[in-house]
Each structure stands twice: as structure tokens, then as C-alpha cells.
């Protein structure tokens, strides 16, 4: 199992992030419709962003040994009253199948539970993305249902599978 660390995004990460979000195989399972921001614009936004807060944690996932970025992860729409958020995670093209995704998903959940004091983390995954689903299940996510024909992609409707994990069911 690969060890990872999470760190804040830096302007120098922009080119890498843009290349990942433009990668056809990565975006096959991602819910973005439009191409990413140009790297220069993204770098300026990262540089201008205020310090990370409860509202929008967004991380570079780095190999714990080399400290090289291997992916990206974010926690979205946290609710202080209902104490939940949603999660998005991406492993760089060429680095899949090494356990980075599982380690990153677990670390993001730990961050949500141990630091942000949330109790529930949810995510959506396309039904055919079996590798991702297996990762989420290993971490403790349980399927809560299927949102029918919720997403138009590549000229066809797609369902979205909803999953969630709780503080006391994270593995």
C-alpha cells in the first residue's frame, strides 16, 4: 500500500492539475463537462486564494516518500449543521493501480472526521467505474442508491451511484 500525504495546492501545481483535468481517460470517469482553466489562470487563482478553511479544503496528494504529487483530492459543500461533506479524488494518469487512490480517499475522510469534526462523507461514482467503487468499498463507503439518468456524457444518459461513509465505519 502506497503511503501518501496531503498538502495545500501551490501555484507551481497548476500545470500538473490542468494536464490531469484535460486527460481523456481521467475525465472518462469525472463529472466535468468543460475543459479546465488554462494553467496560468489556475496558478493565479491558487496564488490569490485565501488560507484554506472549512469551506473548501482542496489538496495535492503526494507520495509520502518522494513528496511528488500523485493526485488531487477535495472536500466539498461541508455543512456545519448536518456535519457532512462530499469528496472528490483523482489519481494522476500512469499512477493508477498502486494504492494511491485508496490511501488518498482514506486520508481525505480522516481529515473530514478528525480535523473538521464531520461525521459523514459522501461521493458519487459512475456505475462502470469498478476500480473506483472497489476502492471506496474497501475504505468503508456503502452504496445508498442510484440517481437515474442524472448525467449527460458522451451523447448518452448515465446513472450516478451515491455512496457514503461515517466516522465510525471508516476502515
Amino acid at each position, binding site marked *: 500500500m502506497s503511503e501518501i500525504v496531503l498538502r495545500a495546492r501551490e501555484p507551481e501545481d497548476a500545470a500538473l492539475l490542468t494536464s490531469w483535468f484535460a486527460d481523456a481517460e481521467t475525465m472518462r470517469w469525472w463529472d466535468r463537462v468543460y475543459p479546465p482553466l488554462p494553467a496560468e489562470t489556475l496558478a493565479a487563482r491558487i496564488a490569490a486564494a485565501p488560507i484554506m478553511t472549512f469551506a473548501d479544503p482542496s489538496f495535492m496528494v503526494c507520495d509520502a516518500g518522494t513528496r511528488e504529487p500523485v493526485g488531487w483530492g477535495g472536500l466539498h459543500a461541508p455543512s456545519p449543521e*448536518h456535519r457532512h461533506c462530499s469528496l472528490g479524488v483523482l489519481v494522476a494518469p500512469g499512477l493508477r493501480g498502486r494504492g494511491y487512490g485508496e490511501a488518498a480517499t482514506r486520508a481525505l475522510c480522516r481529515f473530514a472526521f478528525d480535523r473538521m469534526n464531520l461525521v459523514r462523507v459522501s461521493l458519487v461514482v459512475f456505475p462502470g467505474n469498478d476500480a473506483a467503487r472497489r476502492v471506496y468499498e474497501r475504505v468503508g463507503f456503502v452504496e445508498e442508491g442510484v440517481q437515474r439518468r442524472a448525467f449527460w456524457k458522451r451523447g448518452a444518459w448515465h446513472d450516478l451511484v451515491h455512496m457514503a461513509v461515517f466516522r465510525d465505519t471508516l476502515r
Partner: protein
Amino acid sequence: MIAGSRVVLRERRPSDVPYAQAWLDDVDAMRWTLHPYPAAPDAYDVPGEPLSWGLVPLTVVDAESGRPIGHAGLGDMVPEHRRALCWIVIGDAAFRGRGYGEDTMRTLCRFAFETVNLAKVELEVVADNAAAVRLYERIGFVREVTRRRARWIEGAWHDEHLMGLFPEELR
């Protein structure tokens, strides 16, 4: 205006505000809604612009008397995926349990499909709000996702259903 059989759905007007304030102050009417805080005097927002794509907040009027009895609408419209979330509140207790809510929902969904050209209408409802869930199912909504313990209401966790309706399912 959008005509149902017992209700009319029309744009919000400044003259609705005194009625709406009574609904917002009604604990029974507000128990299962998303907003947990006491309402500000201007909480019933009357748009200053003509209604258009994106957010369509409407006042529900009793067709016979012309009296405002609640509000309903469509929001979070996604043009690529052609879906929206809907909501309904029959604020006037005298009009609850008499079919006004059902007529409102049916009329709102017909408007969503026939006029706005949405492909799907979705809603979020607290699972313990059994009367509402039954009403939505009567109209044709299907329970797609049950988010476990996703809502904190009056000191307890509640499940939440994501329900969806396609045009061919509307009854």
C-alpha cells in the same frame, strides 16, 4: 400563471409577503424544510427581474378564492443534464391534507417538462416526513437514493431521500 385544477401557480408578488411571513413563522410548516434558522422579514424573496431559466420561485394560490396558500418552485437547474430540484410548502394549515399539495406538485412538474423542457425533476425530502413521501410517490416520484443520517433536525439525525421523476412517470 400556471393553472392546475385547484391551484394556480404564479410569480411572487409583494402583496404575498404578509402571507408568507405567517408560513415562515409556522413551526409545523417549516419543520422539514432545509432552512433551520428563524426567517428574516424579507425572507420571502420577490424577484426584481422577470422569471427565467435557473430559479423559478412561485406562489401557490387557491384557484377559487385567489388566496396565497404556499409556495413552490424549481431551482438548481442544470442545462447540460436537464434536471432541476423542486420544492413545495403549503404554508396555510387550512389547506393541508386536502389535495392542494398534490395538485401543486403535479402542476409544477408538468410546467417543468412541458414549458421549461427539463428531462427530469428531482427533490430531497426527509424520510420521516411520511405524508410528503407518500404524496410524491402518488405523483410518480421514485426513491433513488437514501442518504443515511444526512439531516440534523430538532436534536436527532434523519435520513433523506433523493427522489426523481421522468415525464413518462408523471401520474
